[in-house]
């Protein structure tokens, strides 16, 4: 789960990492008060979860009240339906640094990444000038050691006073990484101000979804989602993504669902939604279909090849869902796996024509969607 910048900064502040003075506003009329507190010049930052906010025009540097008002108005009426703006004091910058802590999947360690060239596209720098990026593996049994934080700070080319500040900050950042079961914690840019302070200019904190059972501080709300279907799916723990094509997918397993997505594209069809109801969700056919029906699509395609997710249980669930929800669009089924003979009997009894071959099922769905 990715947190908003203001949430990440809240966490940083509690951990003892400096952040610029700021006020979160949710309405235009809260701006005057915010300006009073943070002062001018200031930065108005849209609180959205997508990256590249600067390039998308979602962050504005303003010097006077009129500009602040017009930008706040522009952002609150933006097509992205921005709900929250962070009004933040502008910082006098001397230097910008990049720093993050993540997991290195290949070596299965924590990884501290730092660069003296902060504030820019770090992915680009990693390709063009890899020598400008410092990577320090962290043994999660011991955590980030002081000597590592100090070594990295020297390698960034900082002076001894700055090294002291920087290494303290890195240790605090590691505490956040550990405490929040982070996939990624990132400060880019980390400002060194003209007065020598280290201040987090931005904040990114991604909590590992598998750890949410022990990370209950932040929750998602309907506001964070583009559609009601996406939010419903989240609450049910059903992996779901909405697109704008014709065929609604209701498949089991990430690999199989992704493959069916590919096959639809090969056949010239388009996908309305990705939905997985396998694994722990295989008894949730009714809920899964309810979510699929909230998405505008022309046909629903159900493909499974289940092991633990028994075919007969899924078939029963689908028949139950059809009887309860009375879908307004055709349904193509291709249900295989444990107890598939029983599944076929159940589906046929309910008047469906079960298919057995994934490619055949995909072609059928594509032709139904095209109205052929």
């Amino acid at each position, binding site marked *: 789960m990715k947190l908003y910048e203001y949430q990440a900064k809240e966490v940083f502040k509690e951990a003892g990492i400096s952040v610029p003075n700021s006020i979160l506003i949710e309405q235009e009329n809260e701006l005057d008060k915010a300006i009073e507190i943070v002062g001018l010049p200031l930065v108005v930052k849209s609180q959205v979860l997508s990256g590249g906010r600067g390039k998308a025009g979602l962050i504005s540097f303003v010097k006077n009240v009129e500009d602040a008002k017009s930008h706040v108005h522009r952002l609150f009426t933006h097509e992205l339906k921005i709900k929250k703006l962070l009004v933040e004091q502008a910082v006098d910058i001397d230097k910008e640094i990049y720093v993050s802590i993540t997991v290195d999947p290949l070596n*299965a360690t*924590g990884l501290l990444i730092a660069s003296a060239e902060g504030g820019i596209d770090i*992915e680009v720098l990693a390709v063009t000038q890899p020598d400008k990026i410092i990577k320090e593996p962290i043994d999660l049994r011991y955590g980030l050691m002081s000597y590592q934080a100090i070594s990295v700070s020297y390698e960034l080319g900082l002076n001894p006073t700055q090294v002291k500040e920087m290494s303290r900050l890195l240790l605090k950042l590691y505490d956040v990484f550990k405490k929040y079961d982070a996939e990624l914690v990132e400060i880019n840019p980390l400002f060194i101000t003209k007065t020598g302070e280290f201040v987090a200019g931005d904040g990114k904190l991604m909590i590992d979804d598998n*750890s949410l059972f022990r990370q209950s501080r932040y929750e998602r709300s309907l506001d964070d989602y583009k559609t009601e279907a996406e939010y419903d799916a989240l609450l049910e723990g059903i992996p779901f*993504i909405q697109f704008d094509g014709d065929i609604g997918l209701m498949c089991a397993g990430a*690999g*199989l669902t992704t493959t069916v997505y*590919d096959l639809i594209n090969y056949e010239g069809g388009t996908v309305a939604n990705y939905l997985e109801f396998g694994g722990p969700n295989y008894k949730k056919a009714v809920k899964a279909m309810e979510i699929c029906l909230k998405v505008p699509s022309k046909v629903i395609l159900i493909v499974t090849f289940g092991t633990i997710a028994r075919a007969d249980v899924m078939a029963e669930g689908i028949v139950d869902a059809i009887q309860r929800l009375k879908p307004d669009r055709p349904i193509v089924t291709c249900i295989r796996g444990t107890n598939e003979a029983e599944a076929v009997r159940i589906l046929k009894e309910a008047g469906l024509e079960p298919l057995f071959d994934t490619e055949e099922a995909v072609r059928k769905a594509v032709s139904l969607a095209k109205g052929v």
Partner: protein
Amino acid sequence: MSIFIDQHTKVLVQGITGSEGSFWTKHMIELGTQVLCGVTPGKEGQTVEGLPVYNTVRKAVLMHDVDASMLFVPPKLTKDAVMEALAAGIKKIVTIADGIPLHDMVLIRQAAKEHQAMVIGGNTTGVISPKVAMMGSFPHWIERVYKKGHVGVMTRSGSLTNEVTAMIVEAGYGVSTLIGVGGDPVPGTRFAEMLPFYENDPETNAVVIIGELGGTMEEEVAEAIKNKTFTKPLVAFLGGRTAPKGQKMGHAGAIITGGKGSVEDKIIALTEVGALVAKRPRMVGKLLETLNVPKSY
């Protein structure tokens, strides 16, 4: 012969009294697996399928000569259960749990390395040598998928494995050993680490890998072929060719970031070293034919 598990492997089941644990223990035995005993804290004295249940792994290994442990343990308890098995000296561990915390997996993998042990999973269905033995949750009775033969299969996925393996069988092949390394970003064991076992297995003539977008496991396989540490024919099927960039589709491992780990990258890496990549599941069998892999049926 098969790799990782055969009819001689002596298996302990952690979490044997749970509904999944007891259900799959029955099927592991039915296939021919030597399951000796189980562990569930607080359930010592009970039996499952006639096998004794102990409170701790420590006690179980005292009473039985165990080679491997199969975990049917919830994700939040997996780290502890793996550590318990490692501490008892068990060198082969399979965990099917879906949803193990990322930081826990990092610690599990480091501990396994230190103990010179192998942990397969999580987020997998396990390991099976059809008609011989299995550790995991495979519907081994489905003939058109779990047919014995000479093609090794490694996979990051569950139901896609059934789909692709059915196509391998449809083309007249069978499976030597199938290993599900799992769909998590940090798996206990990576594709490339299993390749030497397939290379040295006289029953394996070729290997099929079932991968997907995200991560670098497929690129590491290409590297092994390039270094000639793996020399048998290899066919890959990769899901997510048409996935929109930057979108997380299902598996935590299946994410494209900054262009790295895309299916195109993987196809280039694999085809450059002479492996073949199937566009559709059904093509996997045909590509094995192209590489002159002898059929079993």
